[in-house]
């Protein structure tokens, strides 16, 4: 098992190095991408600080707490991009029939399809933004304890599992419908609802964002736990959602592989 993991790590490392080199070939384009990401992050933060200057409360949360929700969203979103950007190229593989070659290789097709092309821009971007986020959190008027930090980290791992499950579901739907790009962008947009606490949204959207597309379990619950607030749903519910979603997505992936007809090749 351990040696298998080592092999996969080695493969991922080679792919990542290749992508890194590719990034530096298209320097101009990547600088613009990075600038765009910096603008998005800075302007979102600016908006939150402007809001902070105007009001003290947003829903049941104070404005300092709202900033923590946004920073948690930002971290999970970028982290997922770093690892699973390969999923964005999956549609081309299905449409052109090159997924056949993926299936022929002695490496799990799911691993190849998910992690095929890490996002180097985001890998670079996550470092300064995480440092800045930690600094910003340290300046806010919020109550954080060592225990809440430990639970927060565990729940962030759970959030990453949920994100993984979503990407697997999207890939499976890609095999079944070839509509992968639309699903991925929809997932990104739904996740972006987590920039703010899910509790500010109306029912039944709020409930759907906790249990159907559990953005709330990914972002709202970890943030509430970090802030020592009573979580909207229990931590156990969050972990249960993460694990069951991953199990369902893996089952669907295996089933969809059996439906793959290689029609394009």
């Amino acid at each position, binding site marked *: 098992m351990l040696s298998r993991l080592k092999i996969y790590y080695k493969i991922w490392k080679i792919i990542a190095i290749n992508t890194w080199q590719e990034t530096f070939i298209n320097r101009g384009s990547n600088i613009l*991408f990075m600038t*765009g990401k910096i603008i998005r992050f800075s302007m979102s933060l600016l*908006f939150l600080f402007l809001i902070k200057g105007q009001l003290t409360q947003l829903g049941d949360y104070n404005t300092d707490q709202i900033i923590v929700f946004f920073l948690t969203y930002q971290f999970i979103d970028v982290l997922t991009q770093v690892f699973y950007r390969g999923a964005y190229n999956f549609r081309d593989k299905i449409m052109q029939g090159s997924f056949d070659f993926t299936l022929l290789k002695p490496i799990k097709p799911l691993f190849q399809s998910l992690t095929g092309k890490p996002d180097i821009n985001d890998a670079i971007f996550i470092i300064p933004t995480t440092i800045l986020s930690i600094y910003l959190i340290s300046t806010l008027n919020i109550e954080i304890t060592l225990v809440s930090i430990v639970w927060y980290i565990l729940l962030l791992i759970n959030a990453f599992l949920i994100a993984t499950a979503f990407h697997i579901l999207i890939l499976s739907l890609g095999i079944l419908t070839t509509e992968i790009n639309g699903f991925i962008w929809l997932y990104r947009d739904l996740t972006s*609802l987590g920039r*703010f606490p899910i509790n500010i949204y109306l029912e039944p959207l709020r409930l759907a964002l906790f249990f159907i597309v559990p953005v709330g379990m990914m972002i709202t619950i970890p943030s509430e736990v970090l802030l020592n607030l009573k979580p909207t749903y229990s931590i156990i519910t969050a972990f249960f959602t993460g694990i069951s979603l991953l199990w369902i997505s893996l089952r669907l992936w295996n089933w969809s592989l059996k439906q793959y007809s290689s029609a394009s090749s």
Partner: protein
Amino acid sequence: MKLSFGKFSKAVMYKYWLIAQLFWQDSLVYRASFLMWRLRSFTSTLISLSVWSAIYQHQSQVFNYSQPAMLSYIFLTAILHSLILSTSLHSLANEIYSGQISFNLLKPINFMGMLISQELADKAINIIFAIGEINLLYLIFKPSFILPPSNTILIFIFWVALGIIIHFIINLLFGTIGFWSPDSWGPKFLFFMLIEFTAGKLYPLDILPQIIQKIIYLTPFPYLSYAQTQLFLGKVNNNQFLQTTLIMIAWILGLGLIYKLIWKNGLRNYTSMGQ
């Protein structure tokens, strides 16, 4: 003479009408993709409405906007985005770089006319769906709207048309990147990010600090929906009518000239390499 011109224009118009029909058919081949695209637009409007509704729970006036003014701004921006910011030119750069554009250049049809009819077809399909979405959001949030002063409606329509032209030329410029490079997504991504925060649904431009606003007003971004919303909300005074109209026309002329020069230069270098 008059009759033959009429026949000619009718035949030409029919040709462009057919192009628009083909575009609609093509757009609806991957229906789920189109549906997802609309769902994304719906989601972003939903986020803005939810956030601002939550903000106004505790206050009646924020950043000099009352709740009806802010919700009107968001609804209006959603419609204007479908009208002004939708485009069929996303793949132009790739078509040029791959050499696919050769087929269109060889056809007995005006290439620019073809692009314009496709662009209008794209806007038509987007606005139809946007109106449906707006109605749904209206039923959910039931906001009270601010209606524009009656004397500004014609100017509003004119400004929307100018916004559409500015955005069209900017996208043509992005397309010309294809004459030299396959990477047009970098500049486009930056453009989308800037649009999100200068003409976005989440908040109006005038809540930003003065210095940022001044910088943004040196660019064409405020004229891609923000200026039109301010006119609609009655926030533009008589002096600004003419000034803003002239600035928008200047942007069209300036960008149009740049496009013409680049396109001419690009065609001279074009080798239809991919074909």
